[in-house]
């Protein structure tokens, strides 16, 4: 058992599960979407991205790019949240909430691809 692979898999799967947790619920209902959960998703995704740095294989490159996509989407969601709460002052209206959640939904898609790639790599491993 390779501890590096354990940590790697852990973070990739965790980023997907957390992302899913944030995503489920009525899309425009702020009660269903917790800000702490978004924070956790963002942090775990950044960590997962960093873990993929320096992997020279083709698989590693694609994993890195999907992670970057996820991080980008989540950062956009976080900035949007900050904007409506603190700057525009309109608060979490249903439309703003829907935008945030749909952005995180996009990130979830990227995370799903990451996990699928991880599973493919594991299946292909002949050792």
């Amino acid at each position, binding site marked *: 058992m390779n501890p590096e692979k354990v940590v790697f898999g852990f973070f990739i799967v965790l980023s997907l599960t957390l992302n899913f947790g944030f995503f489920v619920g009525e899309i425009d209902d702020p009660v269903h979407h917790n*800000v702490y959960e978004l924070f956790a998703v963002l942090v775990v995704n950044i*960590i997962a991205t960093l873990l993929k740095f320096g992997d020279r294989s083709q698989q590693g490159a694609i994993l890195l790019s999907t992670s970057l996509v996820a991080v980008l989407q989540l950062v956009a969601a976080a900035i949007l949240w900050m904007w409506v709460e603190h700057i525009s002052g309109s608060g979490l209206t249903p439309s703003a909430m829907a935008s945030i959640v749909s952005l995180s939904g996009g990130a979830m898609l990227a995370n799903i691809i990451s996990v699928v790639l991880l599973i493919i790599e594991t299946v292909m491993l002949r050792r």
Partner: protein
Amino acid sequence: MDNIVFLILRRMRRPLLTLVLVYAVSILGLVLIPGQDAQGQPWHMSFFHAFYFVSFMSTTIGFGEVPYEFTDAQRVWVTICIYLSVVAWLYAIGTILSLLQDKTFQHAIRERRFAQRIRRMREPFYILCGYGETGRELARALTERGQHVVVVDLNEDKINLLKLQNLRDYVPALHANARTPRYLMEAGLGHPQCAGVVALTNNNEVNLKIAITAKLLNPDVTVICRADSHEIEANMASFGTDYIIDPFDTFAKYLSTALQTPGLYLLQRWLTSRPGTLLPEPVYPPTRGHWIIGGYGRFGKAVFERLKKEDISVTVMEATPEKTGEPRQGVVKGRGTEEETLLEADIQQAVGIVAGTDNDANNLSIVMTARAMTNKLFVIARQNYRENDTLFQAVGADMVMHPSAIVAEKIRVLLATPMLYEFMSLAAYQEENWACELVSRIAGLVDHRVPLIQEFCIQQSRHCAIEYMLERGKVVRLGDIMREPGNLERPLNSIALLRISRNSRELLPADDTELLLGDKLLFCGTRHAFSTMEWILCHGPTLEYMLTGEDQPRSWLWRKYGKRFKR
């Protein structure tokens, strides 16, 4: 490219992870710990404020507690966070700094810049492997003639030396082992503009490996190699190395030229020396009498064979004949630096001595001891290191054999003026009188300095005037372009040495030779002569004037009516 990015990513992974963790923990703590707003109401920091606060916390401590003053509980947490984040930042910045100073990293960056520069080369260039004395001389000679050079050397000091050297052209240099094919490829072996590879390292095996690599990976490229042993030479020749240069054999060949035809040898020296230096004096090695060779190494053997071919009696002195082997006639054992050995080798009867060991001090000592014992001696000294130049000048040897200089000169002629190389090989079949006559013509041409060598090819868009003339069926003779445009009676200070025309080669073409499109001409002469000649070849009206002796009217009107005015 990949190398550098991946090196940074791999090294920075851990520090960045630490930083993200510290940030995450700090932000989370600040959001969770309850605070108070200005009215004393309980208040929770939002993620946005927490992120803002943590971002400036470690870098500008003391910026203030925003947006409301902190409670004591928050302050305790912030204190912990400050220490955590400062350490994490230091760790990250420290790693970046040490990475920048890392040798491997710096080398990766330099290698990448080098490869980029080579890829952008748009003119033919030569790859020099090995930047010792030979490489330095060659690089200077080639850049002076406007040719491009790329250098690969194992020794970093030599590469640094290149930067200090004031060469005319920028020479990209890579500090790497040219044995490794990857580095040769990086130096441009696969580049479409790569004209040749020159292997000049002081290691035969490495030169051999470079030659093989070059011939395998780019068969069209010219490969020139230095080799000191016959075995390696045969090996190199077996896979088609274009030119193999053995300094000892080359010198021995010069020596036999000097013995048989001193005039031809002088001609060769005058034409192949560095232009602008003083013309070398003629040498007349004695062909009758007894010769002594000190040292029976690679050089000694080469000279011994040549002298024997001339039926000259030779005695060999060698300190360690069991190592070097000995000729059939036997050797006098000893270094030759002491009187007894020289006496035993019959110094009193000798007319010439060759100091040919691989130790400069011994060679000088042999020459000085021998000179002290008998006065009329022809001295050939082998100089192994360039730094002893002044010593060998002071000792006044008639011929000095400096391997690096010989190799450099030969390759310089080969690469910079290939027609001169051809001229010399054709001249080798000429009579001694022919050579002497040419030598006296050259002496009249220039003022005790080595003349410039120039090649002209009459089929270049640059020489459009002559091309225009020839295409219209006008006859242009060689003499027409070798006169002063200001005074047609006066010839230019130059001699036409060789004309290559549709595979026929003509030595010293006469003035009335008709020039054809595609002709290649080789001249020796002065700078002024060549710039004038260039002007004649490019400038239509001047060329017309040279042919007819009068200015032709150039405007349509004047051409039509000018003739009537003249009448």
